[in-house]
């Protein structure tokens, strides 16, 4: 696996650039605020449906969570874009035995309360219209290995146009509790219920 080589100043500058790019590309970027527990690291689980997802998580971290950003990427993807290694990217290869090393590495990062690790729980790019969110079992492994306090946050992003020619993003955050008293099946159920409600409520979005 490729460990992260985060350089704070590069990451900070890149975040400014990403924010600028997102502002130019999207019309509205809205998210609901949840309670962030102090002195907890954050495990961020977004739905994965587009090229933008990593940048969206990065933007949201700067805007709302304010932690050191790390992200789990597929090994072949990261190898092609090693710059992301400097902005907190580390790799996972689901086909190799090293997968466990990557998962443990993520747990290690999460043991520090100043960190935020983004993992896409679906493990693949799946349509934004999908009603089911699959959560790979590796997530459970990561959470169980964390030493210390960690808050788990899931969010669904939906892309809409309405009256604008530019797309708008609607983030729907869900607090999935902490790593203490964690139950994998319960979290899966929580995430899917949240996702379905969000899809149904999208009809009522003001525009």
């Amino acid at each position, binding site marked *: 696996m490729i460990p992260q080589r985060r350089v704070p100043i590069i990451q900070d500058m890149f975040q400014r650039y990403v924010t600028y790019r997102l502002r130019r590309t999207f019309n509205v970027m809205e998210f609901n605020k949840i309670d962030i527990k102090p002195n907890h690291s954050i495990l961020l689980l977004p739905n994965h*449906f*587009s*090229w*933008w997802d990593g940048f969206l998580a990065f933007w949201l971290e700067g805007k709302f969570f304010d932690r050191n950003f790390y992200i789990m990427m597929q090994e072949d993807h990261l190898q092609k874009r090693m710059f992301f290694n400097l902005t907190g990217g580390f790799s996972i290869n689901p086909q190799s035995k090293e997968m466990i090393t990557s998962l443990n590495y993520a747990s290690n990062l999460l043991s520090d309360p100043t960190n935020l690790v983004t993992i896409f729980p679906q493990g*693949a*790019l*799946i*349509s*934004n*219209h*999908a*009603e089911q969110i699959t959560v790979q079992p590796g997530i459970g492994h990561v959470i169980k290995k964390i030493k210390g306090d960690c808050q788990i946050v899931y969010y669904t992003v*939906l*892309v*809409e*146009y*309405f*009256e*604008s*020619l530019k*797309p708008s993003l609607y983030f729907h955050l869900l607090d999935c509790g902490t790593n203490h008293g964690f139950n994998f099946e319960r979290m899966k159920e929580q995430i899917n219920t949240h996702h379905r409600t969000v*899809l*149904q409520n*999208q*009809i009522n*979005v003001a*525009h």
Partner: protein
Amino acid sequence: MIYPQQNRLKHWVLDTYVRWSVKRNFHHLKVDKVEVSPDKSVLLIANHFSYWDGMILYYLNQQITGKKFHAMILEETAIKEPMLKYAGGFSVKKNSRDILESLRFAVELLNDPQNMVLIFPQGKLYSNFIGEVTFEPGVSKIMQQAEGKFQLMLAAIFAENFEHKKQVVNVYISNDEQPGSTDATAVQKRYQQHYDRARAQQTKIVL
């Protein structure tokens, strides 16, 4: 009511703009092939989630039907965007006597096999994530009056990013199997079936 106007220069300007902007804003557009009968006009009904829908279908019309494009648009939009009438836009004003004239005009257009008429039966913008498409009553009136003269096509449009920076548009089109029955609820039910099928196909996409 605002009628379509003929002006070769203005039509050219609008045509060029729409082609340029659709190409520029979307990664690619995919559309199903359907049979078009040469001695019948086409009535195309589609879901409405953005200002792009009309442009996308205008852009794809050559490929789908090859007939002369007309679209029913809201009077407010027609006033705000005066160029639309040079590309076959005619207006409809909800809750007014004018609506009868608009419906009559649509029927008149459908009597000529050279024409295609695009109608968004939802009557306003809804989310792209809705599960159920509701119809305004006007569509079935048009269908009753122009019975036998046209071929009914059902379209479901979905826009998503997938692995691309720009969105990918999938237009699922099918010919209506029973154009004979023009009852409002029956048409809506048939559209809904098509929409559900299209949506199921869309959510199956995994990369």
